[in-house]
């Protein structure tokens, strides 16, 4: 592996700010970016990446290869949770395994953005490293399927008393006779609500909406908002990663409680899933840039859209496990070591 890729990546401003955040939290500094600053920053990042992707997409021609990549993305997002679930069942109950499986099937937009960032320098010397705008569409398509799969798994394998309460269930007085509608769907999963969470989660809406708007506004529209949506992008990413570092490091306590085998899953699943992405990209004849992004998407895990959906649909699962693994292990692994690693593998295979 070309170590200079790794070293260069670790010297990126964004990664250094992530490290600063981790350090500050570990030293118990009182530094924090209170709500809703991180929300503003993440909406900005999603909006900017979506718009840019949409504008690029408008300029690409969508041949069979692109359709293939998008399809591969969806398939990856749907099968990763299935195998993950059965592996995780060795250590976790059905609810927690399902929530974590969904988490790892879905994606992290900021990891994607970091990979994009990583590609800019390489792309300036070799156009094969320039990713297509359709990769943003691939990301958008990968957000939600894992949520649905995860909930299905949780229902299927839940202890029967959980999934289908008996009429006389003593622990739920007052609800047994009311039906799900009355009290807001406590009896069983509310599919309408679940689909809303999966496909209409705020993060998904901003990303998909901005992508479509990017497609619609044309170059003139894009020029008018570029000083907002493009120029300061990498700087905003630094600020956001500073906060990610703080938040990730503050979950280290939960990490210790979760134990080694889950941490191993969180670390090892990333390159494992990324390999699937690389294989798919290779089979589809994608360029190195697209391949890196597909690998990164497959290898990344969600910490925004999925937790929101799981809180509602699988409340028995503990976010202290699935959010912590995704945020405090897989995310740092990917943005520091993972992305250069996947790149090195792709370079080795492609050339």
């Amino acid at each position, binding site marked *: 592996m070309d170590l200079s890729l790794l070293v260069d990546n670790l010297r990126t401003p964004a990664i250094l700010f992530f490290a600063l955040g981790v350090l500050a939290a570990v030293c118990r500094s009182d530094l924090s970016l209170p*709500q809703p600053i991180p929300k503003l920053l993440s909406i900005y990042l999603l909006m900017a990446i979506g718009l840019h992707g949409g504008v690029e997409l408008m300029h690409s021609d969508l041949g069979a290869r692109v359709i293939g990549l998008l399809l591969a993305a969806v398939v990856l997002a749907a099968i990763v949770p299935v195998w993950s679930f059965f592996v995780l069942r060795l250590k976790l109950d059905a609810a927690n395994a399902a929530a974590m499986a969904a988490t790892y099937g879905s994606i992290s937009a900021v990891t994607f953005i970091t990979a994009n960032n990583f590609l800019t320098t390489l792309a300036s010397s070799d156009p094969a490293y320039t990713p297509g705008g359709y990769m943003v569409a691939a990301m958008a398509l990968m957000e939600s399927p894992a949520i649905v799969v995860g909930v299905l798994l949780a229902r299927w394998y839940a202890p029967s008393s959980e999934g289908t309460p008996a009429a006389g269930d003593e622990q739920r007085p007052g609800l047994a006779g009311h039906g799900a509608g009355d*009290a807001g769907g406590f009896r069983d999963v509310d599919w309408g609500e679940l689909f809303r969470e999966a496909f209409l989660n705020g993060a998904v809406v901003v990303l998909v909406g901005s992508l479509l708007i990017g497609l619609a506004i044309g170059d003139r529209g894009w020029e008018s908002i570029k000083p907002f949506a493009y120029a300061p992008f990498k700087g905003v990413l630094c600020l956001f990663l500073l906060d990610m570092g703080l938040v990730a490091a*503050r979950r280290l306590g939960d990490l210790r409680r979760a134990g080694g085998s889950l941490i191993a899953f969180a670390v090892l699943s990333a390159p494992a899933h990324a390999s699937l992405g690389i294989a798919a990209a290779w089979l589809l004849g994608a360029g190195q840039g697209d391949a890196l992004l597909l690998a990164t998407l497959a290898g990344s895990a969600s910490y925004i859209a999925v937790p929101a959906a799981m809180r509602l649909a699988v409340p028995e699962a503990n976010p202290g496990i699935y959010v912590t693994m995704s945020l405090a292990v897989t995310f740092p692994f990917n943005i520091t070591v993972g992305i250069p690693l996947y790149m090195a593998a792709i370079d080795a295979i492609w050339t």
Partner: protein
Amino acid sequence: MKNVKRIELVVDSHHVDRVVGVLLAAGVNGYTVLRNASGWGDRGDRHPDGITGAFENCLILCACDEAKAEKLGELLAPVLKKYGGVGLVSDARWMMR
């Protein structure tokens, strides 16, 4: 001033709509919600981090008559059991207005 029960709930922000649904189903006349609460309980540390949204608590305050409070106690028990959170009931008087 009339006597009322003062119901105070602390739940995951994602579940506010559900809990409010239960309050409305019980027929209360109003409620108040304060977001952005942190806390600690059986489910561990909960501190809104602004990124995941997964650890934010909400405080819900509802004043209602005794009969509704009784009913709410029954309706909310399974909700709190399944989704976590705590509920307190105390006595208060409702100011004339």
